[in-house]
């Protein structure tokens, strides 16, 4: 029973630069106690707005990438503090979403990337200098997310200032877009591993209890208020009272209590309010689901209302069938096995070491009350809580242009560099591509992406070969920088416009790097022929040049 408490730790690493080594270093540092998975490159926003991929998530973002307006500030472009803080708000709402999906959300606070040259006396200028603004950004982010108890903003400023080597290795950036030296990544791994471990072990914050034969002896619907036993020199009644005492003590030090009981609401509430020996009263419970619905459904509603993850909850119920039902439906919730002998229950509850140790400050005692009171929430009208809204907010524009002498160089570069979103991994020199494309049966298109934050440049290239009866896509490469935004679907929708009457074929040559392309082919061209029904995603605007 107690082994449930030591959860297996698995962490999903989401970053806007290549930090793949972090996973391996964390695994080593934790002696393989922590398993990891690396999220797709530079898709932090998408990851935050999607379903959980793992138990916990680790965010390593650079402020100039994640908050584009701050990137502009670092280049001394005129930008207002307000616009920067608005972007922080949007990021915070995405993290808020992740806090509901993941058990724990870890993030390294923002530091000024070492690559930038900052005049030290200007950097602290109020509301204008990078250091001043960055401090406000970190503080604002922290404030916005302060109600999220599973959000941990790790102070990278302290960590980085105590690191005695170079944080940035320009060679690694040139080679593989890694912004940090291997030594720094290893150092961060060593410092965050104990934080990750500590926050997962003692993480229970909520106890959901049944009523009949759990908080009292008897069934209030059958025995009535006078028939149930709590204390009053009745042996079973005394045992249940001891359990209530243990629960009350936990509530006093900040653990939340809730009820999930199959009963008539008024009958049960009357017992709670009116029974003379009842220790726990109405105000002690932050949620009361007393109805005839399925308990698993009730519990999920309680968790959602309280903005808590299932893994921070404990469920107490005398009925083994109910315990089983909840355990199976919500595997992350801790459901202690309660033995036949009620006298043992208080002791079992007290011996669980999974409850958060909090200092019993006034604030913690008030925590229960603050959940009941209206809490100040992030103004949702300004923020993007789901991925559709976020994609719309990007104002993506896709420019289509034929291959010409001006974009030949960049097109060739894309062909030779791209691995993940690459149809055939065909490599060519500029001259080879130029000669190949001059054939009248061949047609080459380049695609440039821009959004409200700026230009991503030429980031996709497609070549097609056709004869009278059919056409075939020969090359399709797209930079991983623009993956995860539906650009590839927009590209297909644009291409099929020219081939209404004939079949358009697309088949990938699988490599061990291009599984994103393999997935895409399965989706849009399942038997080698492109589905002509594909339309441009609504959040993307296409411009032909």
């Amino acid at each position, binding site marked *: 029973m107690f082994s449930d408490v030591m959860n297996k730790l698995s962490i999903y690493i989401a970053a806007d630069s290549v930090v*793949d*080594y972090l996973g391996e270093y964390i695994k080593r540092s934790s002696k393989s106690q922590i398993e990891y998975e690396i999220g797709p490159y530079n898709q932090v926003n998408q990851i935050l707005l999607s379903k959980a991929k793992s138990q916990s998530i680790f965010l390593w973002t650079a402020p100039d990438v994640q908050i584009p307006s701050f990137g502009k500030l670092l280049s001394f472009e005129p930008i207002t503090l307000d616009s920067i803080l608005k972007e922080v708000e949007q990021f915070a709402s995405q993290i808020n979403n992740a806090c509901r999906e993941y058990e724990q959300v870890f993030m390294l606070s923002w530091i000024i990337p070492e690559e930038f040259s900052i005049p030290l006396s200007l950097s602290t200028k109020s509301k204008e200098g990078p250091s001043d603004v960055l401090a406000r950004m970190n503080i604002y982010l922290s404030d916005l997310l302060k109600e999220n108890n599973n959000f941990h903003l790790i102070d990278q400023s302290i960590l980085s200032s105590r690191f005695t080597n170079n944080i940035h290795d*320009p*060679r*690694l950036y*040139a*080679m*593989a877009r*890694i912004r940090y030296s*291997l030594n720094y990544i290893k150092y961060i791994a060593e410092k965050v591993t104990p934080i990750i471990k500590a926050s997962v072990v003692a993480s229970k914050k909520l106890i959901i209890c049944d009523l009949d034969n759990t908080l009292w002896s008897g069934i209030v619907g059958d025995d009535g208020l006078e028939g149930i036993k709590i204390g009053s020199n009745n042996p079973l009644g005394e045992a249940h009272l001891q359990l209530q005492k243990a629960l009350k003590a936990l509530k006093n030090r900040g653990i939340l209590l809730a009820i999930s009981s199959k009963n008539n609401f008024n009958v049960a509430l009357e017992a709670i309010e009116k029974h003379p020996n009842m220790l726990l009263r109405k105000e002690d419970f932050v949620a009361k689901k007393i109805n005839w619905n399925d308990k698993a459904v009730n519990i999920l509603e309680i968790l959602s209302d309280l903005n808590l993850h299932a893994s921070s909850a404990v469920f107490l119920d005398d009925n083994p069938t109910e315990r089983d039902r909840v355990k199976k439906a919500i595997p992350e919730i801790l459901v202690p096995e309660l033995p036949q002998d009620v006298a043992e229950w208080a002791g079992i509850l007290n011996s669980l070491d999974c409850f958060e140790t909090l200092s019993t400050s006034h604030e913690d005692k008030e925590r229960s009350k603050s959940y009941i009171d209206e809490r100040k929430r992030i103004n949702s009208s300004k923020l993007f809580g789901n991925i559709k809204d976020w994609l719309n907010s990007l104002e993506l524009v896709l420019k289509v242009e034929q291959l010409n002498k001006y974009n030949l160089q960049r097109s060739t570069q894309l062909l030779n560099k791209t691995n993940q979103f690459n149809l055939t991994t065909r490599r060519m020199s500029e001259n080879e591509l130029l000669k190949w494309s001059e054939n009248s049966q061949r047609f080459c298109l380049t695609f440039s992406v821009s959004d409200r934050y700026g230009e991503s440049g030429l980031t996709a290239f497609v070549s097609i070969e056709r004869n009278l009866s059919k056409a075939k896509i020969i090359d399709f490469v797209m930079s991983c920088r623009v993956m995860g935004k539906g650009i590839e679907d927009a590209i297909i929708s644009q291409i099929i416009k020219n081939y209404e009457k004939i079949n358009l074929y697309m088949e990938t040559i699988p490599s061990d790097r291009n599984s994103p392309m393999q997935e895409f082919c399965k989706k849009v061209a399942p038997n080698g022929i492109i589905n002509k029904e594909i339309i441009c995603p609504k959040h993307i605007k296409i411009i032909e040049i």
Partner: protein
Amino acid sequence: MLEDSEDYLDRLSDIVSEIVGHNNFTLKLDMHANEIEGWDSLAHIQIIHECEISLGIRFSLEEISKLNTVGDLVFLMQNKK
């Protein structure tokens, strides 16, 4: 004191097997990285890093990007000051 190519090759072998997680290979000077399982671009960066640390040297970006065979790397390890 490391003297000849053989010593450097041995040291490199140790580093490589530590990083790719196996020693089902025998390093030869004319070998390429892709002949050894697990020696992908990410492992490559770690291998270079360990070589630098173990010999107290630092390669330039140009030197790293010109590396073609195992022999090239051994040469660099031997001659970098």
